[in-house]
C-alpha cells in the first residue's frame, strides 16, 4: 500500500481516542457474550486446580510444593494462549466485514489493531490477577518483595504483548478464526508443554531437555519464579525481555504489513 492510504491526517491524539473507543467495544462484548468470560477466567482456573491436585503430588511429592513451582508456569502458559484471542478477534472482524465499516470512518488506520491489543492487555491483566489470587487462596505465597512481585506481573504482560504480534500475524493470514485456533493447538500447545512450565525438565529425553532449556516459555517461567518465589530472576527476566523485543521486531512489522494488506 502506498503512503496515501495511511496519510497522517488524523492526529495521534485522535488516533489514541479511536483506539480506546474500539478497546471499549471489545470489552463491552464480554457483557453480551459470557462464553468469552469462560475463555479467560474459568479455563485458567480449571488448569490451575486440575494441575495442582491431579499432577501436583506425583510430580513434587505434595500439592503445596507443586503449586509454588507450577503457578508461574501456568500463568505464563495461560498468557500465551490468551494471545490467540487477539488473533481470533481480528480474524472474526475481518470475516464479518466489521473492518470495512471501521475503515470507511475517518479514524486512525492503526486504531482497530491498537484497540484490540489494548483490550486484550486488560483481559490478560485480569486473568493474571485471577490466577495469582486463586493461587494465594490455594496456598501460594510470594516469597520476595512487592517491587519484585509487580515486576513479575508486568514482565508477563510485556512478554505476552510480544507474543501477541505473532497471533496478530496469524489472525491476518488465516482465512477464518477456526484456523487461528488450529495454529494454537499445533504451535502454542507444544511450545508451552516442552518447557519447565509444568514439570522439571530432568526426566525429559536429552534432546527435549536441550530445547526446553532455551524455550522462551521456560525462561519466562523461571523469571517469574525468581521474581515471585526464590528471589533473583533478573537474568531470565532480561532474557525474556530480549525475547519479547525480538518477537516484536520480527513479527510486528510483518503483522502490520499483513494488517494493511488485508484491511
Amino acid at each position, binding site marked *: 500500500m502506498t503512503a*496515501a*492510504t495511511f*496519510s497522517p491526517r488524523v492526529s495521534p491524539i485522535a488516533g489514541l481516542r479511536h483506539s480506546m473507543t474500539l478497546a471499549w*467495544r471489545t470489552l463491552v462484548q464480554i457483557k453480551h457474550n459470557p462464553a468469552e468470560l469462560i475463555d479467560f477466567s474459568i479455563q485458567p482456573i480449571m488448569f490451575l486446580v486440575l494441575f495442582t491436585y491431579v499432577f501436583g503430588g506425583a510430580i513434587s511429592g505434595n500439592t503445596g510444593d507443586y503449586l509454588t513451582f507450577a503457578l508461574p508456569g501456568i500463568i505464563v502458559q495461560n498468557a500465551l494462549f490468551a494471545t490467540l484471542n487477539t488473533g481470533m478477534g481480528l480474524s472474526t472482524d475481518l470475516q464479518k466485514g466489521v473492518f470495512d465499516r471501521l475503515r*470507511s*470512518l*475517518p479514524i486512525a488506520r492503526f486504531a482497530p489493531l491498537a484497540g484490540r491489543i489494548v483490550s486484550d492487555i486488560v483481559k490478560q491483566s485480569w486473568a493474571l490477577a485471577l490466577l495469582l489470587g486463586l493461587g494465594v487462596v490455594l496456598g501460594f505465597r510470594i516469597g520476595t518483595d512487592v517491587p519484585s512481585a509487580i515486576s513479575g506481573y508486568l514482565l508477563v504482560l510485556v512478554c505476552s504483548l510480544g507474543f501477541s504480534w505473532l497471533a496478530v500475524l496469524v489472525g491476518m493470514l488465516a482465512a477464518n478464526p477456526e484456523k487461528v485456533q488450529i495454529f494454537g493447538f499445533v504451535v502454542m500447545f507444544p511450545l508451552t508443554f516442552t518447557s519447565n512450565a509444568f514439570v522439571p525438565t530432568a526426566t525429559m529425553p536429552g534432546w527435549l531437555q536441550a530445547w526446553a532449556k532455551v524455550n522462551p516459555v521456560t525462561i519466562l517461567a523461571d523469571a517469574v519464579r525468581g521474581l515471585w518465589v526464590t528471589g533473583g530472576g533478573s537474568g531470565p527476566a532480561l532474557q525474556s525481555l530480549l525475547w519479547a523485543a525480538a518477537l516484536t521486531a520480527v513479527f510486528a512489522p510483518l503483522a502490520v504489513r499483513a494488517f494493511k494488506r488485508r484491511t
Partner: protein
Amino acid sequence: MTATIQAEGIVKTYGQLRALDGLDLSVPEGTVLGLLGPNGAGKTTAVRILTTLLRPDSGSLTVKGIDVLKHPDDVRRIIGLSGQYAAVDEYLTGYENLEMIGRLYHMSKRQARERANELLERFTLTDAASRPVKTYSGGMRRRLDLAGALVAAPPVIFMDEPTTGLDPRSRLGMWDVITERVREGTTLLLTTQYLEEADQLADNIIVIDHGRAIAEGTPDELKRKVGGERLELTLRGEAEVATAAAIMRGVGTGEPTVDSETHQVHVPVTRGAPALIAAIRELDAAGIEPVDIAVHRPTLDDVFMRLTGHSTEDKTTEEQK
C-alpha cells in the same frame, strides 16, 4: 460542474482477473446511481475503491471534488458505507453499535447517545435497541448497518447490495428507508443484482459486466433498450393463435411473436397492468379462454441476454475482495 461522485477509467486487477476494466461513472448531487450486475461483475470492487478501502491500479476518482486517492481521510469524513455483509458487531447491542460509531466521530457521550436513539427510532429498532445484534433478523441487521452509515449524516452514501438475501417484506422496508434518504438530498450509489430494485430506486443505472459498463441510462431508457415489460399469453390450441395475435398486436407496442408449437403469443407493452386488462377483455369478447396470461417484467437475466448475448449464469468468476 463536477458530479458528486466521479470516476474515470478505474482498473483493478487480481492476477489474471481484471475485476474492473476501465470503469467510468458519474453521480450528480442528490441523485441515485444504481450499479447493476451479476455476481463477479466488479460491483463490490468498485464500491470498495470509491470508499477508500481499496486502491485501484489506475484511474482517477473524486467525491465532492476531493481526490479519493490523495485525500482518503477527507473523503471518509463525508461518506457513509453500508456493506454487503451488514458489518455490525454481533456481540454489542444495536444501541452500542451506533454509540460506538458516534464516539469514533468524536461526538460527546451525550451527542452519541442522542444520535443513536434518534436513528434507532427512525429505523424502527427502538424495541430491539438493548438486545445484542446476534439476536436480530437479517432485515434488522441491514437496517442497523445502514443506520451506522448515517451516524454522521454524510452527504454521500454507498450501499453495496442493500437487500441481497432479504425476504420480500424486509426488502420493501429497506426501499422505503433508502427512498427517504434520497428525498433528504443524499447522493447515493447503490449496487444491486435486481433490475427491479435499480428501477425502483435509481435515477440512473449502469449495467456492468466483467468490470466494464455495458449499458447506461435512466431506468426507462434501459428498459426501452432491453425491451420493457411484455405480455405472455398461452392458448389451448393452434386455432386461436391468429385471432389472439391480432388482439395482442392491438394492446402491445410492437409486433407479437408467436410460438405455434407451445401456442404462445408474446408482445412488448409499455405498461403491463392496463395492457393485461385490455387483452383479457378482448380475448373474452372473442370467446378465447387462455391457459395462462401474465405480465413478464424483465430481469437482470433478460438485460444480459439482450446486451451481451449470454445469461448471468454463464459466469465462472466470483466477485473478488
